[in-house]
């Protein structure tokens, strides 16, 4: 569980956010002043400090400096400045002192703040993974040993999503339109097919229907990545169970797709192990 130290003196605001964070599975401790914050940060291990800049006793900026310069505080502690102050000088100063990110109080509603923090957390863990991988470079990323066929007509998406999948360690074959995509799927074996829906040549729905008619290809998991999820045909496709998961393009980042793929393989493994036992 992610532990948050919430440095904020307005009890009212604390209540609102605490409720939100706890509902999303965070553990929240409140420190109503700068000194209390420093005390708590020493006493317990936190993952994130959510720091208001206008607090009693010490300014947020001083707390930030102390947290970053005093070696008693863990270096990997993430500090997100949570404030109304958003002048360029303030932001630059915070960054110089070692802030990990900003969340504007006024720009985001409480639930959006929660999702912003979640995004930051994911971002940091990805950064760590990427840096360790890049330090090993030019060595290839660790192979997972799964082959994925990615069918998508938009070149920019092909590059973006397949790069992320490859970084994760998947072997990715890309095809730019429907017909060659289907041919590739028929020619060799894949652990998963990720396909767009609206494409020139052959529609994603058609590819799926054809594959499901073939005995050897029937059980290959299929993810659908579409720009039009409200489309009736696609809906019926998902409802019919032919497709394992579907995503709306505008709502997904490459990493989120990768997480979904990872989770899917993890889930798939579990019952198999139980079966073999």
């Amino acid at each position: 569980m992610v532990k948050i130290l919430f440095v904020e003196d307005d009890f009212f605001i604390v209540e609102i956010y605490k409720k939100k964070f706890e509902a999303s599975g965070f553990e929240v401790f409140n420190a109503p002043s700068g000194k209390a914050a420093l005390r708590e940060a020493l006493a317990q291990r936190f993952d994130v400090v959510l720091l208001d800049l206008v607090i009693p006793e010490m300014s947020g900026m001083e707390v930030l400096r102390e947290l970053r310069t005093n070696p008693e505080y863990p270096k990997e502690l993430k500090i997100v400045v949570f404030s109304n102050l958003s002048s360029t000088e303030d932001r630059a100063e915070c960054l110089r002192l070692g802030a990990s990110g900003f969340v504007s109080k006024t720009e985001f509603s409480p639930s959006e703040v929660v999702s912003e923090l979640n995004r930051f957390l994911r971002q940091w863990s990805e950064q760590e993974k990427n840096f360790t991988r890049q330090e090993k470079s030019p060595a290839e990323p660790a192979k997972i040993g799964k082959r994925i066929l990615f069918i998508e007509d938009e070149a920019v998406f092909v590059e973006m999503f397949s790069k992320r999948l490859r970084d994760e360690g998947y072997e990715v074959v890309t095809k730019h339109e429907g017909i060659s995509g289907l041919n590739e799927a028929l020619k060799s074996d894949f652990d998963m097919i990720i396909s767009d829906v609206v494409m020139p040549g052959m529609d994603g729905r058609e590819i799926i229907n054809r594959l499901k008619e073939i005995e050897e290809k029937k059980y290959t998991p299929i993810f659908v990545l579409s720009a039009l999820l409200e489309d009736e045909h696609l809906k019926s496709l998902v409802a019919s169970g032919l497709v394992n998961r579907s995503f709306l393009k505008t709502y997904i980042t490459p990493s989120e797709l990768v997480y979904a793929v990872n989770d899917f393989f993890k889930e798939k493994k579990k019952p198999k192990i139980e079966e073999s036992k």
Partner: protein
Amino acid sequence: MDPIICGWDTAKLLIFSDNVFDPLIYYSHLGPLLVAFVVGIFVFLTNRKDLINRILLSIVLFFCIWIFFDLVLWATEKNEFTMFFWSAMIFFDLLIYSTALYFIHVFIKQRDLSFFQKVLISLPFIPLIFFSFTRYNIEFFDFTNCDRDALEGILWSYTYAIEILYTVFIFIEIFFGFLKARKENKLKRLLVVSSGVLLFLIAFSWGNIAGNWTDDWTVGQYGLFGFPIFVGFLTYAIVKFKAFDIKLLGVQALIVSLILLIGSQFFFIKTTINFILTGITFALAVGFGWFLIQSVKQEVRRKEELQKISDSLAVTNERLKELDNVKSEFISIASHQLRTPLTAIKGYVSLLLEGSYGKVPMPIQDVLNKVYTINNRLVQLVENLLNVSRIEAGRIQYNFERIQLEPLVSEIVDTFVLTAKKKNLTLTLNLPNYVLPKLTIDPNKIKEVVSNLIDNSLKYTKEGSVSVSVEASNGIARVVISDTGIGISRDDKVKLFEKFIRTKETTSMFVSGSGLGLYIGKSFMEAHGGKIRVESEGVGKGSQFIVELPFVNPNVKAGVSGQFSMLGR
């Protein structure tokens, strides 16, 4: 044949007397004459310039004259009249057939006869002109009895032959007409009209054929009833296919027959008092009849005008709907096209931030985070635009649940506490001191509607307060959002819930805003069987938005628990 020997009295108007061999003759002649006359005149009046109407009127007039001549020769006591009218009838006999041919030709070909054809069709009349009043017409007249026996001469045989020829032509015209008329509607019309014409001719000639062969003129008279059949068929064809008002025809026929009936009384009246009484009745009938026909005519005309106006309105409306659809379709396509770059920006920025392309210094990460956030806002805007086209296509999905309204509203209000605080506005929530029943609603949609309203109120209120109350009465739950903000003018109130509408006051305060929130809100509420409305004293006097939800959602069947998940899919 002497009137005194035969006991004949003087015929009134040449045709009314007891001299006729059978009173049936008046029914068989005057009935069809009346009907034919009224319909002929009426059809003619519906469109005086229409050739087919004129021809029909000619047939009717020839027929009327023929009928009159026929009556005279049966009713008159004077031998010379009988001789004259009998001889003259031959013209109208042939005229009726030739105009019938003319009629059917124009009806089928939809164009006039050529001059040459007209000459051709008129040629057979030449012998009639020369020989009408010679012995070739009425060869012999029996003066020895009171039976009015005549021996028709060679001219009559000639005329019958020409008539048979014309009838054959009519058959040929009809035959080719059927070959040409493939369309169902036209075929039916042709069938009606041609069988009308043929039945008429058969019935018409029946009198002569039966009379000549059997010497029983009574049987022959029945043939004349064929004319109303023909006219009836024509009327049906016109009513059915030309859409004129049957009401007017009915009234006119009724009035005219009434007047004629009253008028006919004059011939049987013996006393002066009765004469005066009948005269008054006649005058009243004519007067009121005329007024009645005028008023019906006016009504029909007004109805036709109304029909024309509403037809053109329907066309305009159709066009507007089309335009609206085109616009929504455009939005849908444009939004879809917008999604591609937005997705790419979102994806690449996230990859950059995650360090997929190498370490990114903190100041640049900060900028990228801003880009990511602002891009997400754009994504949301595009989704809203798509929502509009989805609403219009009826493709919005609702997930109805039975839930408590109060906690939902207080949760929404919570999210705005900070915004209000920052603007120094008081944001208050008033919940009722009783518990509302659970409502069948889609919480996300209600959340969107109420959030949007509170957001608007906070946005457009410079100082003062925004209060949110939940209340209920008469089976309706209400969420009322009142503010002390810019208010709404009377004009704007009307169109506020249409799409892409923003009031003058809002645009002067904030440039952004799509004007979609209230439109979406309205359609969401309608799906709940509820309402959204606004009250405001005017510009600068604050406004009150009221969301109404019925306790029982009429769009979800009560007591069917499976319904919710079904709708949710």
